[in-house]
């Protein structure tokens, strides 16, 4: 096999193009038809399955799971596979009425039995009452867990006609929702509480509680996710990964794997040096690297006729590693003598060739501390945790001549297309990216993934379509999570509670690649004349860290808000009063905000929560179970920026809204439809959104940075304004005529900052002798400008808060320090929040006027997770008088620290 680089890739592309006209030029495996069986078949059994009332006679391999047979062989893809280990619940089906994990049942065990799946719930197009309630209560966010939640809820209701709230939570506890829309699912099953009421508004569509427009697809199993895509002749691919945290790859022998029946291609560094540009902004990150720099770094990839054959082939690949020293802790990585992970040292550069930490300064720090009556110092350690979205990474690639189509769960079809074209040296027009539905991402499905590129290379090598699937463990190790930090603070204030100085020296562990900033954010929440922040984004041999909801904030806000809480305590000032005195009034004390209502959020939250009567100074009382309250704030950019939209009004009175969104669970599609309906004064039912396909949609900013509502929303409104003008000039289109308006907007806001903000209040009970924390009450007040859809916006808040509670109390990717190997990847190991861990979360909105964004809307996706860890940490301090300086606040840490 020749070497595949960007350059030779083009030549290869040419070769294949030639191959279509010159049959004598052979590529190994090119375009061969793919049978169901490899040459050496595994044991098989004939079974009869009754699925949703229909009988299927089929022959299955004994090792096939029920989930596999339902999805791959019967085409019933409504049942999802999130972990394949019985740790997430996405694959829940009913077997003779009782719920089971279809991933943990062999298909042969279902022989002669009755299987019920989500596809059997609706009567044709008519949703059953439970599905209808799931739609109305906004049950599905990304929708990947929804089928499982529905099957568990159906079984529960068959068993218990009028369940209590606790019975619902118990009954559905075997179904993880990483969007963490647990409150909504419970409401839907109970059907008692109605979603949060909206206040009256002048606008007709915007601001009204609106179920998401694609919810029926998501509750019926009709929504097609990337893993559901099956193409004729499609091969299955798997990746071989490094078991070492740092090693030279002396030799990769792929021949034993290539010789196996059913194997169509094996690629490795020997044959492929395609660079994955968006995998590292500072260094060349190849698809297969030498040295490998973390446990899980890809070494080779296989395409075979089925996934089991591909897995068997991985085991046949022989790799000779030379283990190198490794370092996991960012501070240790910067000490002299630490092993060098990237050429030039372990301090990740600000730009190519610059080796300095990130520094921000204002005022005179020393003077600020000199003017302080109280100076506090403390340090905080946060951990790497995985985004853990329910849908694992999967990419499907197909070449049609020189044109590449990639189906992938991406947060941005436009930037994914751009990245693929760049890395494979193709004209962007020759790359099509499709994402119909995707099962969450929270920041780790931005841009193009290495899986997209590997699938594309394997598809080119074999001439067949290729589906590359990552296992859940691979998703935890091979895809990035939140960056861990160590934060050293010094904060000074005068007796009256006026901040005088803030110093932060911080270290963040990026893993071996700089895929995002590694920043530590939060000091911008406070007004202070003298500030110095020095952050060292650092290479380590842990798994890669990059964006996860509110990337730099939850951990940084935990640090600074802990300091502020401690300062208020030392000064004997109520934290709410301390915040009202000290929170930011201009961004970095310099740039005015377009609108800013953080103080109102704090005041409103304190009032709703009853702070004045609940708060008392920390440490009073010695009962075994101690109550405490805490609060913290957050903010996130809601800047304007470039995006595009195309609106088409047809003769039937339908408005087609073409936007490049993929809707990761935020209800972005619904929001775009609402904006178009409002602007065009049309009914929402007459609006059709076209999304998730670079061939059918204009450029869109990726669904990252909470930018879609503002940026793509602005483009939709601009296109609507144009269309309105055309309408008034020409009248409505008749027959086959269509009015078309295109807009690309990039509004500038000169000299002002635009931010969303939030204040959270929590009450919890700490059972001291057993180290247990129970969240008793949680109030989240958010200012995100105008709330376009109070239903889905509140769902965003509930989900973000819940993920934040998990970050505070449970989650950590643990590493064995002697070997550098992570020991608990997966949902079980991460202790991801369940129905029973999730409290009711009260959501309130403060809605100031703002002159920018669609109808004044700001961002709502990322802000909800930002204050959570800090609020919980402060409440634990309030309850116990002790502050925990290392995440998570798990039982062992609580007992060891508070004992």
């Amino acid at each position, binding site marked *: 096999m020749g070497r595949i680089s960007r350059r030779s890739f083009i030549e290869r592309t040419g070769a294949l193009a030639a191959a279509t006209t010159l049959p004598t030029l052979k590529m190994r495996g090119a375009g061969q038809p793919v049978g169901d069986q490899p040459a050496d078949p595994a044991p098989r059994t004939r079974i009869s399955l009754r699925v949703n009332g229909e009988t299927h006679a089929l022959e299955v391999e004994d090792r096939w799971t029920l989930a596999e047979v339902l999805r791959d062989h019967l085409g019933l893809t409504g049942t999802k596979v999130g972990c394949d280990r019985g740790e997430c619940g996405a694959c829940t089906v009913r077997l003779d009425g009782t719920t089971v994990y279809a991933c*943990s049942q062999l298909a042969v065990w279902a022989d002669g039995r009755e299987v019920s799946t989500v596809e059997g719930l609706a009567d044709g197009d008519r949703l059953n009452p439970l599905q209808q309630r799931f739609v109305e209560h906004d049950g599905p966010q990304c929708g990947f867990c929804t089928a499982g939640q529905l099957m568990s809820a159906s*079984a529960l209701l068959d068993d218990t006609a009028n369940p209590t709230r606790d019975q619902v939570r118990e009954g559905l506890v075997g179904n993880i929702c990483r969007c963490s829309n647990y409150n909504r699912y419970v409401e839907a099953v109970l059907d008692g509480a109605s979603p949060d009421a909206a206040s009256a508004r002048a606008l007709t569509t915007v601001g009204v509680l609106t179920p998401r427009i694609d919810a029926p697809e998501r509750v019926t199993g009709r929504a097609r996710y990337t893993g559901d895509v099956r193409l004729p002749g499609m091969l299955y691919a798997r990746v071989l990964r490094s078991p070492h945290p740092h090693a030279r790859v002396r030799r990769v022998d792929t021949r034993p794997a290539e010789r196996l029946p059913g194997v169509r291609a094996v690629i490795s560094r020997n044959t492929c040096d395609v660079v994955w540009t968006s995998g590292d902004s500072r260094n060349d990150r190849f698809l297969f690297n030498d040295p490998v720099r973390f446990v899980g770094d890809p070494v080779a990839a296989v395409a075979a006729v089925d996934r089991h054959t591909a897995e068997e082939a991985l085991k046949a690949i022989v790799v000779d590693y030379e283990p190198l020293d490794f370092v996991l802790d960012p501070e240790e990585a910067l000490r002299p003598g630490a092993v060098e992970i990237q050429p030039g040292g372990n301090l990740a550069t600000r730009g190519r060739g610059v080796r300095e930490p990130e520094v921000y300064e204002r005022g005179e720090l020393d003077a600020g501390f000199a003017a302080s009556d109280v100076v506090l110092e403390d340090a905080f350690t946060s951990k790497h945790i995985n985004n853990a979205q329910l849908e694992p990474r999967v990419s499907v690639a197909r070449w049609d001549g020189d044109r590449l189509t990639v189906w992938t769960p991406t947060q941005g079809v436009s930037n994914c297309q751009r990245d693929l074209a760049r890395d494979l040296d193709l004209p962007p027009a020759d790359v099509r990216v499709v994402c119909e539905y995707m099962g969450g991402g929270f920041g780790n499905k931005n841009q193009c993934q290495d899986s997209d590129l590997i699938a594309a290379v394997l598809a080119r090598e074999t001439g067949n379509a290729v589906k590359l699937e990552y296992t859940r463990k691979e998703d935890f190790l091979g895809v990035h999570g939140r960056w861990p930090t160590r934060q050293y603070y010094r904060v000074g204030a005068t007796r009256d509670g006026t901040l005088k100085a803030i110093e932060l020296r911080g270290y963040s562990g990026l893993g071996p690649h700089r895929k995002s900033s590694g920043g530590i954010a939060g000091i911008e929440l406070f007004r202070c004349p003298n500030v110095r922040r020095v952050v060292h984004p650092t290479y380590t041999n842990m798994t890669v860290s990059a964006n996860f909801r509110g990337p730099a904030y939850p951990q940084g806000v935990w640090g600074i808000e802990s300091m502020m809480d401690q300062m208020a305590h030392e000064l004997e000032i109520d934290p709410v009063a301390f915040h009202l005195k000290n929170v930011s009034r201009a961004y970095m004390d310099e740039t005015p905000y377009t609108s800013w209502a953080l103080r109102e959020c704090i005041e409103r939250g304190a009032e709703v929560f009853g702070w004045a009567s609940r708060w008392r100074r920390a440490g009073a009382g010695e009962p075994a179970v101690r109550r405490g309250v805490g609060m913290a704030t957050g903010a996130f950019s809601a800047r304007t920026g470039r995006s595009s939209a195309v609106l088409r009004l047809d003769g039937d009175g339908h408005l087609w809204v073409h936007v490049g969104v993929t809707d990761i669970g935020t209800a972005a599609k619904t929001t775009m439809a609402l904006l178009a309906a409002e602007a065009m004064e049309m009914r929402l039912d007459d609006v059709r959104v076209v999304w998730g396909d670079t061939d059918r949609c204009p450029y869109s900013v990726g669904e990252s940075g909470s930018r879609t509502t503002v940026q793509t929303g602005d483009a939709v409104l601009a296109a609507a304004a144009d269309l309105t003008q055309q309408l008034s000039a020409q009248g409505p289109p008749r027959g086959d005529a269509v009015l078309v308006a295109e807009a690309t907007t990039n509004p500038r806001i000169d000299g002002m900052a635009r931010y969303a903000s939030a204040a959270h209040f929590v009450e919890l009970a700490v059972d001291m002798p057993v180290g247990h924390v129970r969240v008793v009450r949680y109030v989240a007040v958010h200012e995100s400008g105008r709330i376009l859809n109070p239903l889905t916006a509140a769902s965003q808040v509930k989900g973000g808060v819940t993920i934040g509670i998990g970050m505070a109390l449970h989650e950590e990717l643990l590493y064995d320090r002697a070997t550098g190997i992570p020991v608990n990847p997966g949902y079980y190991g991460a202790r991801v929040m369940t129905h029973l861990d999730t409290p009711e979360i009260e959501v309130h909105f403060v809605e100031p006027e703002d002159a920018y964004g669609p109808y004044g809307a700001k961002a709502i996706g990322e802000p909800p997770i930002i204050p959570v860890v800090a609020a919980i940490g402060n409440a634990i301090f309030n309850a116990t008088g002790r502050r925990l300086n290392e995440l998570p606040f798990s039982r062992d840490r609580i007992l060891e620290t508070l004992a």
Partner: protein
Amino acid sequence: MKRFAHMSPDSLAAATAALRDTGAAPVGGGSDLLGMIKDDLAAPDRLVRLTQLSGLDTIAPRPGGGVQVGGMITLSALSRHPVIRDRYAVLAEAAGSVGTPQIRNAGTLAGNLTQRPWCWYFRQGFPCYKHGGTRCFSRTGENQFNAILGGGPSFIVHPSDTAPALVALDAQIHIVGDAGDRWLPIREFFVLPSEDVSRENVLRPGEIVTELALPPRPGARSVYTKVRDREAWTHAVVSTAVVLTLDDDGDDPGVCRRAAIALGGVAPIPWRVAAVERLLVGKRLTPELAAAAGAAAVEGARALARNRYKISLVSETLRRSLLSLT
């Protein structure tokens, strides 16, 4: 997943005969075994299914008192059974605390007793004692959840919830193999790593657990308390199974006549605390006595670097469990 053949024998004899083959493995609900195979931690060539065998999933009275519980009963059925809930609450609660409804619907009692350890290192395939290696990685590694009692050379904790409940109930366990069958007191079923580090119980290759016999416990009250690090879907950080007979009437109400206590999550086997039982018998169960019992339960406990918290945790959990029965 590795390839294997599957068979569903129609009799116990056929099942045990099939299990004679090296490479054959018995399977009940499969929750644990399939995951192990997928993770390359187990590599059977043939799965022999047991759940279809008739008579192994029932609960029936025993002549002379007590009940007989089939090894293939699902944890759901066990936890909901009126007789078990009424007379053996500790077992119903233990079975009901396992995993999730889906896991309990598939998982069997025998499978819950014989599941392999959930030590991080074992599950990640480290070459530890349990995988035939020569060291225990948890001893100096991430040992938050490892043993404080009975550990060495391996420091796994026994992962089963039903095991401490059955130990506290003095159950008998029926083991059947191709060469014959035997009944054992459940305490003799479990094996410490110091006795044989490669296994957690006495089952020889090809042997299976077919049923459990629970002795009569008239007037006993019992409770299973499971401490978890999320509210569901984890193994016990620590747990306590307590079966007490207290005088209800007469001159000494509240005096403990009989006590059986086993701890979970602290040792490589369910950890019976006979000294605590002796401490309780003949005395009124006061808050002071419960606290003393809690303290006595962890005598001899030795913490690893990261699990010291378990000592006070299990002590306090036992204290609370005892008081919940008064």
